[in-house]
């Protein structure tokens, strides 16, 4: 799918082929397979197991997948759901309509029944819901009974997965393989029982749902399935991270889980800190000692880290922080999504110091930008922030290929033989670039002194004005100049000469891109997506500002209430965006809803009756 674009800012949709395929398909009136499965139930019922397995099976079967999760801050009870969309074309957002609703509780039916598409089906088991539904569109599968007969009563979710594949008429092979992999560690008996239960669910649905309307498109080759939190974890390793310290906090805990799992076979150390203050100070200690380090948290934890962020700035110690946003202020919605901390990430910390802030739009960008954050933080000895949110961290995407090509690793530290030759070392030596060689302490007779006070070139406390001026010039002014050159301008997608520009940052990348794909046949439209936000990219250098000035309408789409990027663009460039779409209910944008809102704007632009109808279904 979309390659990481470092300095090359234009993504040619023709090269990607997605828009062309969609246009061609709609012209020929070929329906594009685009199904959504929603699994609803209480926390603890195994929604995630069903969702993860289905997503994996679809990806292995060669379909593109996008999934997102909606859950409450509780371990048992409440109402959660997991939504998976799959298609033969790349999908990167969730839709409002549902084709198969797997209802593990009654609330799922009450809450989501209205979202069912015209030919959608609801799967349930009356023995566990204690209700029977005779209406059309309901398929009862005796999940618990099938599980009991063919394996064990605890395997009813496996029956549901098998049943879903049976309804879709999909091959069962990839599911049997996935079950083998999932349960291998529990022994052959557990694997076999789960496989028989899956087959039983599959056959039951095949026989009892003759009206199941689903037609599958020809699958492609197996695809890589990546979740945002894993992508940040992998990117951390690719960037050379060897120490990760954090306090668990949704939605960043998954990074720690991923790295802890990897620590069993790879030399990375994960330490669960007593609080976020400790986490950031631990990574600064490890970084000072000579190891690339990182932490991750959410807004509340980041608030506690802010003093440490300034410490990284003052001591010129590299630090990478993944800030996974959720709706605030304070505890807010602990398990939901929001883009409310852009300005906080940009300006957090007392005093003035340079930083980079990256906001990846999809898991592939998360891998690249996390690795890049580690590289830049270590190259310039500054803090770097990966700004993401619950939506990206918990969502899964598929990719046709996956590699670490484009990540970069250079050891910038002064160590080994190079250090042995140095005899007049000064930690904060004034250099042309402002970046001082950073020796590893204890590796030579040179002393490495870092200080949170204003300090001289040796790192010792000073009070005089002249040294202060020298250090501010070195630490802040000179470095800022260099770091600016590292920042890529926003990514453009769609028309080269757009009349309508949709602007976004971070996790809205997928949904905005799909809106462009849908509207492109009729509308001269493009996306301008910001994933590198501090230092603010130069919008004049490659003509972005000119595009904005020429467009009839520029709409800034943000998962927040106040339009933080829109304000930032105005502050940095003086350009006032013509419209904003903001969503702050703690939920992600859905493709159909966003299309509606964009269409409202387009109608105002072109006049009544000009409404562009989305190409599909």
């Amino acid at each position, binding site marked *: 799918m979309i390659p990481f674009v470092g300095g090359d800012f234009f993504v040619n949709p023709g090269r990607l082929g997605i828009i062309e395929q969609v246009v061609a398909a709609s012209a020929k009136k070929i329906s594009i397979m685009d199904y959504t499965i929603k699994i609803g139930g209480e926390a603890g019922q195994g929604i995630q197991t069903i969702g993860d397995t289905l997503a994996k099976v679809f990806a*292995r079967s060669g379909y593109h997948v996008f999934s997102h999760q909606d859950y409450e801050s509780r371990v048992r009870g409440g109402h959660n759901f997991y939504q998976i969309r799959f298609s033969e074309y790349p999908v990167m957002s969730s839709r409002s309509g549902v084709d198969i609703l797997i209802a593990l509780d009654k609330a799922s039916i009450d809450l989501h029944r209205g979202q069912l598409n015209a030919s959608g089906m609801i799967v349930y088991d009356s023995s566990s819901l204690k209700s029977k539904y005779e209406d059309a569109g309901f398929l009862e599968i005796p999940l618990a009974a099938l599980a009991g007969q063919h394996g064990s009563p605890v395997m009813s979710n496996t029956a549901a997965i098998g049943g879903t594949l049976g309804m879709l008429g999909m091959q069962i092979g990839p599911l049997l393989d996935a079950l083998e992999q999932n349960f291998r560690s529990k022994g052959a008996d557990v694997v076999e029982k789960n496989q028989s239960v899956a087959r039983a669910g599959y056959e039951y649905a095949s026989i009892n749902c003759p009206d199941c309307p689903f037609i599958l498109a020809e699958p492609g080759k197996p695809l*890589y*399935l*990546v979740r945002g939190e*894993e992508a940040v974890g*992998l990117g951390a*390793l*690719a960037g050379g991270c*060897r*120490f990760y310290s954090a306090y668990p906090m949704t939605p960043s805990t998954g990074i720690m889980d991923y790295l802890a799992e*990897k*620590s069993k076979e*790879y*030399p990375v*150390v994960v*330490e669960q*800190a*007593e609080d976020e*203050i*400790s986490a*950031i*100070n*631990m*990574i*600064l*200690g*490890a*970084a*000072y*000692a*000579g*190891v690339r*380090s990182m932490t991750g948290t959410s807004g509340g934890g980041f608030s506690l880290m802010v*003093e*440490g962020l300034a*410490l990284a700035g003052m*001591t010129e110690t590299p630090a990478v922080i993944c800030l996974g946003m959720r709706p605030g202020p304070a505890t807010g919605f602990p398990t939901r999504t929001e883009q409310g901390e852009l300005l906080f990430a940009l300006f957090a910390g007392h005093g003035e110091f340079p930083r980079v802030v990256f906001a990846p739009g999809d898991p592939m960008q998360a891998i690249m930008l996390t690795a890049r954050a580690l590289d830049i933080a270590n190259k310039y000895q500054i803090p770097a922030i990966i700004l993401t949110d619950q939506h990206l961290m918990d969502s899964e995407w598929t990719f046709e290929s*996956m*590699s*670490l090509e484009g*990540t970069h*690793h250079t*050891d910038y530290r002064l*160590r080994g033989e190079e250090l042995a030759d140095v005899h007049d070392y000064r930690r904060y030596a004034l250099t042309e670039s402002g970046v001082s060689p950073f020796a590893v*302490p*204890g*590796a*030579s*007779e*040179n*002393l*490495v*002194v*870092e*200080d*949170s*006070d204003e300090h001289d070139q040796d*790192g*010792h*406390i000073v009070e005089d004005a002249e040294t202060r001026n020298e250090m501010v010039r070195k630490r802040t002014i000179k470095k800022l100049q260099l770091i600016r050159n590292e920042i890529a301008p926003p990514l453009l997608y769609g028309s080269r000469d757009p009349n309508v520009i949709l602007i976004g940052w971070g996790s809205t990348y997928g949904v905005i891109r799909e809106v462009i794909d849908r509207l492109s046949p009729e509308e001269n439209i493009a996306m301008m997506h910001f994933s590198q936000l501090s230092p603010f990219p130069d919008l004049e250098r490659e003509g972005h500002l000119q595009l904005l000035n020429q467009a009839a309408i520029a709409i800034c789409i943000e998962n927040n209430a106040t339009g933080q990027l829109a304000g930032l663009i105005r502050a940095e460039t003086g350009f006032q965006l013509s419209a904003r779409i903001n969503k702050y209910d703690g939920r992600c944008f859905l493709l159909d809803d966003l299309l509606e809102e964009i269409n409202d704007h387009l109608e105002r632009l072109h006049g009544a009756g000009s409404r562009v109808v989305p190409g599909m279904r």
Partner: protein
Amino acid sequence: MTTLKDYMGQVPAWCPGCGNFAIRRAIGEALIELGLEPWQIIVVSGIGQAAKLPHYIKCNTFNGLHGRALPVATGIRIANNRIPVICETGDGDCYGEGGNHLMHAIRRNVNVNVFVHDNQIYGLTKGQASPTSMAGMVTKVQPNGVIAEMFNPIAMAIALDCSFVARSSCTDAEHLKSMFVHAINHPGFALVDILQPCITFNKLNTWQWYQERVYRIEEDYDPEDKVRAFERSLEWGERIPIGIIYGNKRPILEDTIPNIRQKPLIDQPFDRSRVEEFISEFL
């Protein structure tokens, strides 16, 4: 041969007569006795008069934030478990602002040596009560006397099964040095609480006050007896024991991390091909 002069750094900005001078000298002497040169150790500190010490001796230093020396020290030890790490801290820095980190560093048993310059008052901010100020002490901010019960670091550390707990006093220079040597030699978290007069602000716990009360603990005292140790930790007032109050041989954090058992993290170079192996897991 390394001499005390080799350890002397900037001219201290402490008040003349401050107990910190005795501590600085004792640390230099202890390091010489241990055969450690300035570049072979890292001294971590936070904020306060004690935290300035690494600027006044020669060593590798990370002088960070108020109360946060211990997490920094923990990170250093995980990155490089070969280098001795000392935290120079005070009663406000370590027992007040950084109390949570102390509790958890003791639990982890990270091999860090914490030397607390405990003068029972805030010096840098000019004379407010500290966690170890004695109840009833009158200050500018506590005009009716300190109400909170005095914090007992020795008792708390023993309760948490801290692997090395000692108290010493600026009034006994020889003892101070020997406690530093024992602490650094001890594998595991070592807490040394150092009674120290603040000649400017603490008019209650003076040189004379400590001199009259402090005594070296008996030579046949067994620091591995936890219950007895706890009893001794409560001894305060007329007589105050100094020495190794408690010790044990718990495993240290660094030895429990498989990835650093053979080689410190800093000596394990990056190998991208090992990360690339993880990509196939996503297929």
